Structures are given as C-alpha cells and as structure tokens.
C-alpha cells in the first residue's frame, strides 16, 4: 500500500515533470510549486534544468518556510542576474543567524548590483556584526555600494554604526546625502534606545556637514523629537529663522512638543512675529492641548493685520466661547474670506447663547445677511427660527427667500410639510421649486415619524404630473419603511405607465429586504412582461446583495428559479448560491450543469463556492469540480475548476 509520503513524493515528481515540459505552463503553476515542502523547494533550486520561474517561486516560498538547510542553495543564486533578489527574498525571511554569516561572506565575493543587493539584505536584517564590513564600503568608488552601506548602517542603528557614520559625515565624501540619511535613521534608533546624547551628537554632525537644506531640516526635526519638552530654545530659533522652511519645522513642532513652558514661550513669541507668521503660529497654538486663552484670540481678532485677524476668527470658529459670538456673527454675514469658516463655526459650536444670538440677528437682518443666518439657523435646527423662515418663504429678496426655503427643510415638522410640498411640486421650473425639492428631501428623511411622512407623500401622488410623481416615489424610496413601501407598491400597480415605470424602478433599488415579497408578487402577477422581469430582477438583487440569513437567502433562490422563465434571469439567480457557501449549495449549483443555458452560470457559482469550502470538504469539492470540468462550462471558471480539482484531489489524499 502506498503511504501518504510516497503519494506526496509522486505528486511532487509529477508536478516537476509537468513544469519542466513547458516554460509557458511553468509560469502559471506557482500554486503547485508553493505547496511544496521546504526540502523539495531546495531540491528545485538545485535542479539543473529548473526554470527561472520555478526557482523564483521556490525562493519566495522559502522566505516563509525555509530553514538553515536552504541557505546554501539560496546563496548560490545570489550572483544570478535575474534571481539574486529572489535568493535574497528567501534568505531575508529565514531567522537563522547562519544567514547573516552567509550574507557577510557573499558581500566580500560578489560585485556590482548583486553585491549592493546583499548589503541591502544585511541592513534589512540589522546585522550588528557587519559594521566593520560596511565601514569599509562607505568610501567605495561604486556609489551604489557606498549608498547601500550607509543605508545598512542606519538600519543597524547602534553606537558602533553611529560612530562610523559620524566620522564619515566629517569627510569630503560624494555621497554625504546618503550618509546623512543613514545617520538620521541611526539617530532615531539611538534615541528610542534611550541613548539621547549619542542621538543628539549624530544629529549635530548632520547639521554641521555640508549638506542640503532639507536634510538639515530633518536633523533639526530629529533633535526636536529627541528633546521634547526640553526643546524650547531650538523650537523658538526655528520660528524666528528668516528661512521659511525652518520656520515650518517650528510650526510643526509647535503643535507637538509638550509642556506649559513651551506653550507660554510660544504665546509670548506670537506678538513678535511678522503678521503672516503670527497667523500660522496662531493656528498651530490653537491645536496644542492647552490651547490659547480666549481673550488673547479675541484681541488678535481685532488685529490690524488681515492675516492675523482671519486666523483668529478661524480659531474662534473652532474653539470659541460666547464672547466670540459678535465677531463670528459679523464675519459670517460679511462676505469676506473668513465667512465660510465663521459660518461653519456657528453651525457646529456648542455653548449657550448661540441660538438666541442668531435669532436676534435674524430678526433685524436683510437680504444676503438674512440668507446666511437662515443657513446657520437651519443647520442648528433652531426651532425659534421656524416662524421667521416660514414668513420669508415669500420674501421679495430671492436670496432670502431661497435660504428660508432650504432652512425649512431642517426646521419644518410633519404638520407643515405640505408647505414645502406645495412649492416642490409647483408647475413652474424655478430656483424656488428646486430649493423646495431639496428642502422636502431633507425634511422627509429627517422627520422622526417616517411612516407619517410616507403617508403624506403617498397621499399627494395621485393627480400629479409624472415628473412630480416620480419625485415623490424616489423620495419614498429614500425614506423606506412600511408605509413608504405601501405607497410605492400601490403606484407600481398603477395603470399609468409613467408612474408604474418610476415605481418599479424605486422598488428594484429598495435599500432593504422589506420589498422582497412585493417584488415577488409583482413578478408573478403583473400584466406586463417588462415589469414582471424588472420586479424579479429586484427580488434577485435583494437575495444576491443584501444581508439575509442563509436559510432565507436559499429559499429566495429556490423561489426565483421557480418564477424565472427566461434563462437570463435564471443565470442571475444562480449567483445567489455563491453567497451561501456550503457543500449543499455547491451541489445544488452542480445540479444545473445539465441545462445548456445554465451550465456556465452554474459552473461559476459552483467554482466560487468550491474555493470557499475546499479546505474543509476536499472530497465533495473534488466530486463537484470533476463534474464542472466534464460539463465544459468554458471561460475562467473552467480553468479554476481544473485547479480546484487538482488541489482537492491532493488534499483528499
């Protein structure tokens, strides 16, 4: 009797033979290669006639499962033009320290790109024993190699690496940028390890080097991150640096460095900066945990410098209290650059007095100012604004009128929703009608009693133009719920083709499974085939896409297959099965393979389910995929079925 190991070995041999037979085929058989055990992967690497593809895949798999036994075979590929990265892929993954020894040795033997790659792998593995080797390479004439050595030293990140990098920074080396980059990475690791003095010294060496400005900025960023609460002097120096890029480091750090001492120093500095910088620092200070005293921001909001004034308004709009109200209200109604920020602030801030202040201004305001205040009142849902908005719905000033209508969407209650409906369903196509439609949509979705809203909307449908009926039906579809469904179903039974068309579309796109029974009923009973088909498609969509218990979904599949008369609908119905992955549904899909019209869709579903249950049910998948393969379903599913069949057979063994 053949045991499992023998079978496995035979299978591997078959696979290798098949792979060797055709390069084109070999490039698509990665699954088989990557299923091999580590020993066979190594054997594949050593096989004289194995293809690049086979070796590449074996290396990639060894990165995950390889042991020290794989090291020689992988090292042997390090000099290969195409496979050197794959060999490194494998080696980098193997945790055994023997890999580090092998890489160090290889680094002394290889040349060119392959040597560079090996140095990268040494860095990737943070091999502390390689510092001396890397030190020697820093001054190599090959810039790629020297750059790799600098990067590796940075990743190693210990005191020895730091000393090498620091010394190199002081030398006139062409690759000082790479050495500085390695130094920055190294310094971070030193700081994280608690060696702050060493980190600061390395940052200082970068700052002293003849190096690009943005690298110095990075070094200063590192120093500030190391110093934390002790970084006040460095921070203040940056904020006062004439160079904008250094000022920007300060801006960033001003948000992050902790401590009241720093906070106080920054506030003190604020008034001494030019206006543009004051504005930016003000925004940064507002983001600090302790924030800014409101009085200081209020004072800045009256600054002569527009930039400072506007930044202060932004801060007040984000974090202001009642004392900021007059400034925010003035800024909101004036059409200046901070108007949007002020309006947003007034819509979102939460303290007593805002609503009353808005109403007070609203009572006196005119024209565009009134429109702004209606916008704010609507967003805040200030009930006291309702009467004013209602009154302004007929105002002579268009901006006021339209804003009032839009605000009504946020303010109106059920009893008065007719007000909006009247304007939304008006005959003339005006801006007012458009605003009312938007408001009605908002109100219908906002008002708590959605069924009551639905009754109102449904009650208004009869006698309207098709366009208006469609508007209301779509709105009913948005709010959903039992009464909305009732209204739309009634419309779907209408004798008016336009209404029926709109209603069945809305039903077909219903946001939940509530509509399933109604759609099924229409699919069975409607007089017109096109609506029966649309309703059935809507029913199938619910079964296929929405959240349902598996038993309910399966029942809907069976029902859909019974009701569907056309192959197209049956094919789509078969997709439902793939949402219920089980042996039963896979076999159910397979049972339709005999139908020439359905075999392709049945094959698709069976394959999708098989992929999901193959691990737990390889025998059943093997049987099912055998049938799919024999049914010649065509397309991608035919290929996948073959792969699954092979995989299932292997798993069954």
């Amino acid at each position: 009797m053949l045991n499992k190991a023998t079978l496995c070995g035979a299978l591997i041999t078959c696979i290798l033979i098949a792979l060797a037979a055709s390069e084109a085929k070999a490039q698509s058989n990665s699954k088989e290669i990557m299923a091999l055990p580590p020993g066979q992967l190594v054997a594949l690497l050593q096989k004289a006639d194995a293809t690049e593809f086979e070796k590449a895949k074996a290396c990639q798999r060894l990165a995950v499962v390889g042991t020290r036994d794989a090291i020689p075979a992988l090292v042997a590929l390090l000099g290969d033009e195409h496979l050197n990265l794959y060999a490194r892929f494998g080696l980098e993954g193997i945790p055994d320290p023997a890999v580090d020894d092998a890489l160090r040795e290889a680094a002394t033997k290889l040349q060119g790109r392959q040597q560079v790659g090996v140095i990268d792998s040494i860095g990737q593995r943070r091999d502390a024993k390689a510092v001396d080797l890397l030190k020697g390479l820093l001054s190599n004439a090959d810039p790629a190699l020297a750059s790799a050595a600098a990067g590796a030293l940075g990743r190693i990140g210990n005191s020895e690496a730091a000393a090498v990098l620091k010394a190199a920074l002081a030398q006139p080396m062409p690759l000082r940028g790479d050495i500085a980059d390695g130094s920055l990475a190294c310094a971070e690791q030193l700081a994280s390890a608690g060696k702050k003095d060493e980190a600061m010294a390395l940052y200082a060496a970068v700052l002293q080097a003849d190096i690009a400005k943005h690298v110095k900025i990075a070094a200063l960023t590192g120093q500030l991150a190391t110093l934390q609460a002790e970084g006040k002097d460095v921070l203040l120096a940056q904020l006062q640096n004439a160079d904008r890029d250094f000022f920007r480091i300060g801006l960033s750090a001003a948000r992050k460095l902790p401590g009241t001492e720093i906070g106080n120093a920054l506030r003190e500095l604020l008034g001494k900066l030019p206006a543009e910088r004051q504005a930016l620092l003000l925004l940064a200070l507002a983001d600090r945990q302790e924030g800014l005293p409101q009085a200081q921001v209020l004072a800045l909001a009256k600054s002569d410098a527009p930039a400072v004034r506007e930044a202060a308004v932004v801060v007040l709009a984000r974090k202001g209290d009642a004392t900021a109200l007059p400034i925010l209200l003035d800024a909101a109604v004036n059409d200046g650059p901070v108007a949007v920020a002020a309006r947003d602030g007034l819509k979102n801030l939460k303290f007593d007095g805002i609503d009353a202040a808005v109403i007070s201004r609203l009572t006196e305001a005119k024209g565009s100012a009134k429109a702004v205040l209606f916008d704010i009142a609507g967003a805040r849902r200030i009930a006291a604004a309702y009467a004013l908005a209602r009154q302004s719905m007929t105002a002579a000033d268009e901006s006021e009128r339209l804003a009032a209508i839009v605000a009504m969407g946020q303010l109106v209650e059920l009893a008065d929703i007719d007000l909006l409906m009247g304007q939304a369903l008006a005959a003339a196509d005006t801006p007012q009608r458009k605003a009312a439609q938007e408001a009605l949509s908002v109100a219908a979705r906002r008002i708590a009693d959605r069924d009551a809203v639905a009754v109102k909307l449904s009650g208004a449908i009869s006698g309207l133009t098709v366009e208006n009926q469609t508007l209301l039906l779509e709105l009913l579809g948005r709010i959903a719920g039992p009464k909305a469904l009732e209204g739309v179903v009634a419309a779907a039974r209408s004798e008016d083709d336009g209404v029926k068309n709109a209603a069945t579309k809305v039903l077909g796109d219903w946001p939940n499974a509530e509509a399933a029974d109604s759609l099924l009923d229409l699919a069975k009973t409607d007089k017109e085939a096109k609506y029966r088909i649309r309703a059935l498609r809507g029913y199938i969509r619910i079964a296929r896409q929405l959240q349902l218990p598996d038993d309910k979904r399966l029942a809907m599949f069976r029902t859909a297959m019974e009701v569907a008369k056309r192959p197209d609908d049956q094919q789509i119905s078969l997709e439902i099965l793939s949402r219920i992955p089980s042996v039963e549904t896979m076999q159910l899909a397979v049972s339709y393979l005999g139908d020439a019209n359905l075999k392709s869709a049945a094959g698709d579903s069976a394959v999708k389910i098989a992929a999901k249950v193959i691990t737990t049910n390889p025998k059943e998948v093997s049987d099912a995929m055998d049938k799919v393969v024999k049914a010649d379903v065509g397309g991608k599913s035919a290929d996948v079925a073959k792969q699954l069949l092979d995989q299932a057979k292997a798993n069954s063994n």
Partner: protein
Amino acid sequence: MSHQRVTYTRRRFLSTAAKGSALLAVPMIVPARALGLDGAVAPSERIALAGLGIGGRGNYVLDCMMDEPIFQFIAIADPQKSRREAVQQKAEKKYGPGVAMYRDFREMLPRQDIDAVLIATGDRWHTMASICVAKAGKDIYCEKPCSMTIEESQALADTMRRYGRIYQAGTQRRSVANFLFATELCHSGKLGKLTTVHANTLAPATNHDWLPGEPEPTMDECDWNLWLGPTPWRPYNQQYVQGRWRGFFDFHGGGILEWGAHTVDQCNWAAVNDQTMPVLYEPTPTGCVATYENGLKLVMREEGWMGLGTCSVRYEGEDGWVETGDTGRLEMSSSQLRSEQRSYSEVGTSAVSHVKNFIEAIKTRKPAHSNAEVVATSHIICHAAYIAWQLGRPLKLDPAKVEFINDAEANRMRSRALRDPWRI
C-alpha cells in the same frame, strides 16, 4: 512628536497631533490669507507640483489640483512615454509650455523648485516613491494603497516623520462629509457602545504566476526595469504596463487592501480613533473578521451591503447603527439618528475636499487628514488580515510590537525583499 515607530500604545497616540478626532468637530477650510496667501496667489506662494506615474485615477486627482489656483504643475515623471506625454500635454494646455518630462523620477527630484509631488503609480511603487520624494524634501499626495507590506507601512510613517514632510494618502473619504458624519456618530456615543464595525472589502486573491515573456520595448517607450522598481524581476509582458498588474502578488497588495485602504481606515477611525488595531484576525472565505482587545469586531466583507455605493461602511453600537457609502446616502437605525443628518453633496470618490486639506496641511504644517501615521495603522490591519487569509488560520497580533504572536510564518510575511538599489 516622537521617535517611536508606528506601534500602537494608547500613551503614544494621546501625545501625537496626527490622530483624527479634532478633524471631526469642524472640518473647515482656512482662508488663504491666514495661510500666508493674499488674494490671488502670488507666484512666490504657489505650490510647484510635479507628478509621478499619473494614470486614470491620478489624472482625476491632478484635475482637482489644477483647479486650485495655488498649484502650478511643472513636471511629470513616468517610465511610459505615452503616459508622460499625455500629462505634459494636459498641463501645458492650462499653464503654457514648460512642463518638463522625465522618464526616471530620480532625475526630477533634485529640482529645488518642486514643492510637492502627486504619486499615482501602481501599488508596488507607492511606498518607495513616497520615501524617495520625502528624502528629496518635498511634500506628497500619494494614491492608495500606500504600502505592499506591514514593514513598508511602518517605513512610510517613519520616513515622513523623520523628514518632517506633509503626506496625504489618497484615502479621500477622510474628507467627505457623509463618512465624517458616520464617524462622528461613533465618537459622540450616539450609537452607544460600539459592538461591530463593517468594512466593504474585495475578496482577497493571490497570484504568483508570470505572464508569458514578450520582447521588451525600448527604454524610452517603456522602461521596464524602472516600471518594476523595487519588485522582483520577471519577463516583460505588455499587459502589466497597460494596467493589468492587479492580482499579481508582486505588484498588488491583495484584495482586502484595495478598498480596505479606504474602508478599514474609516472603521478603525470610527472604532478607536486610529489609536490601536485589532489583536485577532480570523479569515473568512472572502475576507476577515478582526477583533480588538475590548471585544469590538471589525468585519471585512465583500457582500451584504445596503446598496449605498461602493466602499460602504457600517457601524453598529448597542443603541443603533449607521451605514453609508460612496453615493453620500446614509441609512440609520432610528428616526432620532436620521434627524441629525444634513444634506451631503460630495460623493465618496471626490478628491476636492481632500486636495484642499492637502493645501492647508502644506501651508500650516498640520498633519493632513490621511497622514502617514493613520494610513500606516489601517494598512497594517489590512495586511494582517490578508496574511491570515493566505495562511488560512487565525492570527494574534501584538499591536505594540506589530508582531504576530507565536506564528513565525506570519511574521516572515510582514516584509518582502526589495530589488536593489531600492531600500526603505
């Protein structure tokens, strides 16, 4: 500001300005003058922008940027001639002649007149290109997904912090109002104690195959070596460079990351305000269920959504739930919650607000909404889920060390070797 790597302890994140909570209160735009700009943008205040690998989505984001007067697009780098020429042509139509073209971005980056770079290459390049750009002292807007591995995610955040660069990932839903509203419902406690957050992800897949080799085009037409970049060598096939690189392990982060870069990111923000990550990852046939230390579940699933658009998320608490997606529509469990919503006009795919936030971040040096630390966190979650799915077994993760517990194979999958001369 700290040297600590992207690891996850509450203490660390409480001290950083990169976390997201403050963004929710008032997502407001700072006026130009308060950013040091005065009315019409003076040439000295313009942000000189370059592009790197601009294709389909990249072109859309570039359009959003070119709509902002503060940007001036001055250079494009792409290993493919047809693509760099198309971008040059478009930019010159707006700005006039003078938009420089580069095959190799390493020749473009030393230019001192470039302030920021839009990166929209394929996934394989996102981390490496971002790191190179940061090391050249420029700010970055990079399309998602932002990394190929857990280690790349950490290196990305490390480098941005090290070089003090502004980084905005193209996870623009961090700036889109309906998603902000849903997150705010979680943070304000209006859903009660959260029990499960759901992220719309695509089914994971792994393909290690190679397409058949074809003759390589000239280096000027398509620099195959540069196209491959840090990824392993393989024979050229034009399908890769025409966009059909997705699904191949060497080029693609796996299905979960494709949308999870957005939706897992949203969920982690809503659930724990980016401050930690799940500790347990249990694969499902088409996704993963992750569990935080406090028992909160993060479900990554492909199907079963309410039809509110692509990249949907759903947050469930003891007192209610909310679901939303790219249409901007929201569904909620109660009339009380529904009554809180406003009208949201920006769809989830829009980058308009996200680009404005990028500008603000450049000028104020405040971390951008999708800064490297928050995206590193959510990408690590996606990678961990994908590794669990590949191994077909549950994995436990130590968020403080970003190491899997007692699973050597999983730990060995946290990084991939990079082709020289590329290193992180």
